[in-house]
């Protein structure tokens, strides 16, 4: 039998706000334990939560970036479960009235682009961190758990895809695209290694052609895109092998073991969980009116997919548009500025992604401090287009500008790189070369095209490479037809 895998991805994005979701404690990373805590995020008796406006702006931005609809009203719920790293033993989260609903993300695998639906994005708070240690002098038991609540209450956006992903590679591509968008929005550090973006996968299989979903298994603990892909593939293979040997998939949560390269069942003593959700009485409803959504929309940066479309629309090939879109922001801005100053889009894109990026790498310089303006780049491009500087000489001009020697025209002059495009001078040089090489000239007249290159080369040599080769070409042809 042939099987189809059905995968849904849940992503947790920690927002990079100044303060936590419901209190004024600083959001940091790597601070000493329990130093960024207050009555609210520690769940002290009497403390109350107040939502962070910027965190809510951020989830709306995320929703808009994925073409979600933003709910006109939304509420927080309490999700009740006891866990040592959860200070109140309930998590303030959202249940049946999330802020963002029904969006999508386009995912490309092997050149094929597919649209994956996003079911919802909701706001919640992160838990603290626990670490397990060996014998620490406790009277009973050989080990203990240490708790640090610095992360407790950090704003977290959970983005839930629809079960519309059908391979491990697609799961990975979805995660990568999603991360790119979130990073672009600037709402999160989106660093997998620091856990500021975390991926869980719900994996099931079904015979091809069957509509109903199979029993799903939740796979956790993947901390790189590669491990996500491996874990999903492992889980698909495991389920197929299980079912084909007359076993049955059990609904459960499994833990990915990166070193062993397999998933393990996380056996929890608690049977089926019963979170007893109810509307958080310490918080009032949120009303996301148009003014609010418009205010957030106005701050949205251009996202990769839209940007690539725009680049293609202005004349770039898709591959070049993708490269440029992936470039650092100052590089893209330089491109925009050059085009704004009248430069040809393709030339500008080639320059910024080619020579200019190479120079930055060579000089180990940040793109932020690139000593080149869009106007200068546009001038350089027009020198080439107008034939005043040859393509190869243009690279020298660029280096001169980057070395601070002045604007491209000045540099070309100072470095003596201006092409000879004066017709009279070129005609004189051509005539001398033709007189010196009568045999070659005769062959050309007889239609032997290959000697044209030789003659042009002779003229270029005579002019120390400064003649505009196109003009030289034209003049020699004129002489042939004379």
């Amino acid at each position: 039998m042939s099987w189809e895998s059905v995968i849904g991805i849940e992503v947790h994005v920690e927002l990079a706000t100044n303060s936590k979701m419901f209190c004024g404690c600083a959001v940091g990373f790597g601070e000493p334990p329990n130093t960024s805590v207050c009555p609210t995020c520690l769940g002290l008796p009497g403390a109350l939560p107040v939502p962070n406006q910027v965190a809510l702006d951020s989830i709306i931005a995320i929703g808009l970036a994925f073409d979600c609809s933003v709910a006109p009203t939304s509420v927080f719920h309490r999700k009740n479960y006891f866990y040592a790293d959860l200070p109140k033993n309930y998590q303030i989260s959202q249940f049946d009235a999330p802020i963002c609903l029904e969006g999508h993300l386009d995912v490309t695998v092997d050149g094929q682009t597919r649209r994956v639906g996003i079911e919802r994005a909701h706001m919640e708070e992160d838990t603290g961190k626990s670490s397990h240690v060996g014998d620490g002098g406790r009277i009973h038991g050989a080990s203990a758990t240490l708790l640090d609540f610095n992360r407790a209450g950090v704003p977290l956006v959970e983005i839930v895809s629809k079960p519309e992903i059908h391979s491990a590679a697609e799961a990975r591509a979805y995660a990568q695209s999603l991360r790119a968008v979130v990073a672009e929005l600037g709402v999160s550090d989106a660093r997998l290694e620091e856990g500021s973006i975390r991926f869980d996968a719900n994996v099931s299989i079904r015979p091809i052609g069957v509509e109903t979903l199979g029993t799903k298994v939740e796979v956790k603990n993947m901390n790189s895109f590669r491990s996500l892909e491996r874990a999903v593939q492992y889980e698909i293979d495991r389920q197929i092998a299980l079912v084909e040997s007359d076993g049955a998939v059990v609904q459960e949560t499994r833990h990915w073991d990166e070193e062993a390269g397999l998933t393990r069942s996380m056996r929890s003593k608690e049977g089926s969980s019963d979170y007893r959700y109810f509307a958080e009485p310490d918080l009032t409803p949120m009303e996301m009116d148009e003014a609010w959504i418009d205010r957030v929309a106005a701050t949205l940066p251009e996202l990769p997919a839209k940007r690539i479309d725009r680049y293609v629309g202005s004349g770039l090939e898709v591959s070049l548009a993708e490269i440029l879109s992936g470039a650092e922001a100052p590089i893209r801005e330089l491109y925009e500025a050059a085009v704004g100053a009248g430069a040809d889009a393709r030339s500008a894109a080639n320059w910024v992604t080619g020579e200019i990026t190479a120079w930055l790498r060579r000089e180990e310089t940040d793109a932020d401090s690139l000593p080149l303006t869009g106007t200068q780049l546009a001038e350089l491009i027009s020198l080439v287009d107008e034939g005043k500087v040859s393509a190869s000489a243009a690279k020298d001009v660029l280096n001169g500008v980057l070395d601070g020697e002045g604007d491209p025209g000045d540099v070309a002059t100072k470095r003596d790189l201006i092409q000879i495009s004066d017709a009279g001078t070129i005609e004189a040089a051509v005539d001398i070369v033709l007189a010196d090489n009568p045999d070659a000239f005769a062959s050309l007249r007889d239609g032997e095209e290959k000697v044209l290159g030789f003659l042009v080369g002779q003229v270029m040599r005579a002019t120390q490479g400064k003649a505009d080769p196109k003009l030289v070409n034209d003049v020699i042809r004129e002489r042939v037809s004379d």
Partner: protein
Amino acid sequence: MPVEIDIAHVARLARLGLTEPELDHYRDQLAVILEHAARVQELEGEPDVDVTHPLGVVNAFRPDEVRTSLDREEVLGQAPEARDGYFVVPPALEL
């Protein structure tokens, strides 16, 4: 009405480590209270208003500003067990 109360399950959800006689006692009391509480089902018709804040407060947010956190020693001073800046608990059972 709800004569069926899985009191052990409820106590487990609430992390209340009660003895068998205590569980029996609370189950009997809950049965009596719930029988009275079930009168909420006598409500006729659908109410007009939603349960929201009586003064209609919505969108009560705070600016994203950092406020001073608590002094760690003062916080940990209230903990039954603390070590090296951490709260300490017996190990979790999972995994």
